[in-house]
C-alpha cells in the first residue's frame, strides 16, 4: 500500500487512467484544467487517446463518437463548460452509450468566478440536458473518495449504458491530500455487442437518438425510465457520521459534507448530540436512509454552497421544511458557522439566556414524511 500526496484534479485523472480509460477529449477551464494537462502526457504515454478539443461542444461529441465505438471515453469540465456540453449529454443518454463526465463546479450563474461552488446540483441531478432522464451523479468529499468513485465510474457507465457524473467542486479539484491509488487495471479488449466497429459478417448497427414516431419515442423513454429505476434501486450511496444518538442532523454533500463533519465534532465537544448524513450519490438520492434517520432526530439542518438546491430533495424526502445554511459565489461555510446555524443550542446556553434565539425547533419526527419510491 502506497500513500502519496496528490492534487485533486490530477488524482482524478490518474484514477480514470487506472480504471482503463481509452480516450479523453477535453477543453481547458478553471478550476479543472489540471485534469486536461495531466492527461495530455499520461494518456499518450500509455498509447491511449488524448485530444484537446476546439470547445466543450466539440469535446462531448468526440466522447459521443468514441463511446459509440464501445470505448471507455470521458471528458472533464467546469460549470460554464458543462452548460455547453448539455447538448451532447442528452444525445448520449438517449443513445444509451456509456460516458463518464467530471464536473469540477465553480461559482455561477454566468461566467461567475473560479471559486468553489455547489450551484450545479440542479443542473446535474435533474437532467444535465433536455429530455427526460437523470445521470448517475456521484459527489466525493475527499480526494481519496474522488479516486475511489472515479475507479468505478466506467464500470457503472458500462453496466447501465448510461451517463455517470463525478460532481466535485473547485476545492476538491485544487486541494492536495494523501491518496492510495488503485492499481492500473488491464482490461480485456471486449467489444460490447452494440458498439460500432464495422459491419463484418453481421447486419449494420446504428446508434441514434432519433425516434420520429411518438410510440417509438415513448418506448425509448419507458426503457430509460426502467433503467433509471434499476439505478435508483441499486446505486444509492451515502455516509452517516455519529448519527446513532443524534438529536440534530446535518445534511451536506461533497466538500461541505467534510466541513460539516468537523462541525459535528465541534458541536459534540459542546455537548450537542449532532450527526451528519452525507449523500454520496446525488442521483439517485439515498432517500430511504435519510427518511429513516429523520424519524429519530429533532431537527435537520441542510448546508450547501448554493441557495438550497439539495434542500428541496431533503424536504421532499422528510416531508416538511428543514433549516438551511447556504453560502454562494465561492464563499465556503466554516465549521463554526455551521455549529452556529444548528437550531438547537447547547443546554447550558439555553439555561443561561432563557432562549436560544433560534427559530422554533422543527420536530421532524412528528411529521409524516413521504419517502420516495
Amino acid at each position, binding site marked *: 500500500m502506497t500513500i502519496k500526496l496528490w492534487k485533486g484534479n490530477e488524482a482524478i485523472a490518474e484514477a480514470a487512467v487506472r480504471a482503463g480509460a481509452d480516450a479523453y477529449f477535453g477543453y481547458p477551464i478553471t478550476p479543472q484544467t489540471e485534469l486536461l494537462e495531466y492527461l495530455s502526457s499520461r494518456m499518450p504515454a500509455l498509447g491511449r487517446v488524448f*485530444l484537446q478539443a476546439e470547445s466543450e461542444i466539440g*469535446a462531448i*461529441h468526440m466522447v459521443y463518437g468514441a463511446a459509440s465505438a464501445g470505448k471507455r471515453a470521458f471528458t472533464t469540465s467546469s460549470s460554464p463548460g458543462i452548460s455547453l456540453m448539455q447538448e451532447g449529454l442528452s444525445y448520449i443518454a438517449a443513445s444509451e452509450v456509456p460516458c463518464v463526465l467530471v464536473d469540477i463546479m465553480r461559482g455561477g450563474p454566468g461566467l461567475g468566478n473560479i471559486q468553489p461552488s455547489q450551484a450545479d446540483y440542479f443542473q446535474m441531478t435533474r437532467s444535465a440536458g433536455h429530455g427526460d432522464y437523470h445521470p448517475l451523479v456521484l459527489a466525493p468529499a475527499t480526494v481519496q473518495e474522488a479516486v475511489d468513485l472515479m475507479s468505478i465510474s466506467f464500470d457503472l457507465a458500462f453496466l447501465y449504458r448510461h451517463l455517470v457524473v463525478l460532481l466535485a467542486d473547485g476545492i476538491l479539484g485544487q486541494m492536495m491530500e494523501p491518496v492510495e491509488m488503485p492499481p492500473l487495471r488491464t482490461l480485456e479488449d471486449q467489444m460490447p455487442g452494440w458498439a460500432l466497429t464495422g459491419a463484418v459478417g453481421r447486419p449494420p448497427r446504428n446508434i441514434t437518438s432519433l425516434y420520429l414516431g411518438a410510440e417509438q419515442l415513448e418506448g425509448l423513454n419507458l426503457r430509460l425510465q426502467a433503467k433509471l429505476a434499476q439505478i435508483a434501486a441499486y446505486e444509492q450511496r451515502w455516509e452517516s457520521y455519529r448519527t446513532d444518538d443524534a438529536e440534530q442532523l446535518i445534511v451536506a454533500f461533497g466538500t461541505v459534507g467534510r466541513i460539516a463533519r468537523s462541525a459535528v465534532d465541534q458541536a459534540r465537544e459542546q455537548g450537542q448530540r449532532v450527526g451528519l448524513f452525507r449523500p454520496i450519490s446525488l442521483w439517485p438520492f439515498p432517500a430511504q436512509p435519510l427518511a429513516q434517520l429523520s424519524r429519530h432526530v429533532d431537527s435537520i439542518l441542510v448546508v450547501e454552497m448554493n441557495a438550497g438546491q439539495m434542500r428541496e430533495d431533503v424536504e421532499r424526502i422528510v416531508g416538511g421544511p428543514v433549516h438551511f445554511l447556504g453560502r454562494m459565489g465561492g464563499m465556503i461555510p466554516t465549521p463554526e458557522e455551521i455549529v452556529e446555524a444548528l437550531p438547537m443550542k447547547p443546554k447550558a446556553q439555553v439555561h443561561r439566556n432563557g432562549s436560544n434565539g433560534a427559530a422554533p425547533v422543527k420536530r421532524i419526527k412528528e411529521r409524516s414524511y413521504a419517502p420516495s419510491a
Partner: protein
Amino acid sequence: MPPVLERPIENQTNNGSPVLEPVYCFPDSLRDVHTHYCPGCTHGTIHRLVAEVIDELGIRERTLMVAPVGCAVFAYEYFNLDSCEAAHGRAPAMATGLKRVLPDQIVFTYQGDGDLASIGTNEIIHAAARGEKITVIFVNNAVYGMTGGQMAPTSLPGQVTSSSPAGRNPAIQGHPIHIPEMLAGMPGVAYAVRRSVHSVAEIRKTKKAIRQAFQTQLDGLGLSIVEILSSCPTNWRMDPAGALDFIRDQMVPVFPLGDFKVIG
C-alpha cells in the same frame, strides 16, 4: 431478327443462352429500402455514388458513417453500414471521436449545408485544422431542406426562401459561404473539391471525386471533403428538371466546380 448484343458473349450456358456479366447492380453498401427523399431530390443519387465507391474500394465492412441533422438525418437507415446519428453540426466531432479510437476504420460524415456551413462551422474547421483522417460528403442545396426551405449560409444572393421572402440581400444577410475554398488553405486538408449532380457527366465526375476522397483517407493524407451541389425541387418550388437547370444556371456561377486542393 434478334437484337444485336453490343457486348461480346464470352460464354454460353448448356442451353445456349448467354451468361451476362452484371454491369449495374444494387450496391451492397445501400439497403434495399424506400427513402423519404422528395421526388427529384438528388440526395438519392449522391447516396448511390457513395455506396458504389465504398463497394468498389472493398471497404464496406470497415466503414463507419456519421449521419447529420437535416434532410439526410435518416441516412443511417439507407446505408448498409455501421453508423451513428450526430447532433446538428457535430458530425465532424463525432467522426473525430470514432476515428481516433478506431484509426484503421474508414469514417465519413454526410452533411448538408445548414449542418456543416452554419451550426457546424466550428466542428468542420477544427477537424480540418487537426487534419482528421476522415471524409466529408457535403451536400449543398442552398436551403434548409428539412425545416421547409429557410435561408442557409449557402443561399444565393437574391434567392427567395421562406425566411428571406424579399430575396437574400448580401448587405443584410451576408454572402454565401464557400467551404472547400476556405478549407483548402489549411495544411490538414488533403482533398477539397466541389462537384455537382445536375447532369450525367457531372454525376460521373462527382463519383470520381468521392472515390478520390475515400482514397485520400485510405492513404492517411488528411481530411477530404467533396462539396456536391444538389437539388431541392420542393423548397425551390420547381419541377425536378427545372431544379437541375437551376443548379447549372444559378448555383454553379456562385459555387464554381473544381479542385481547390488535391494532395496525393
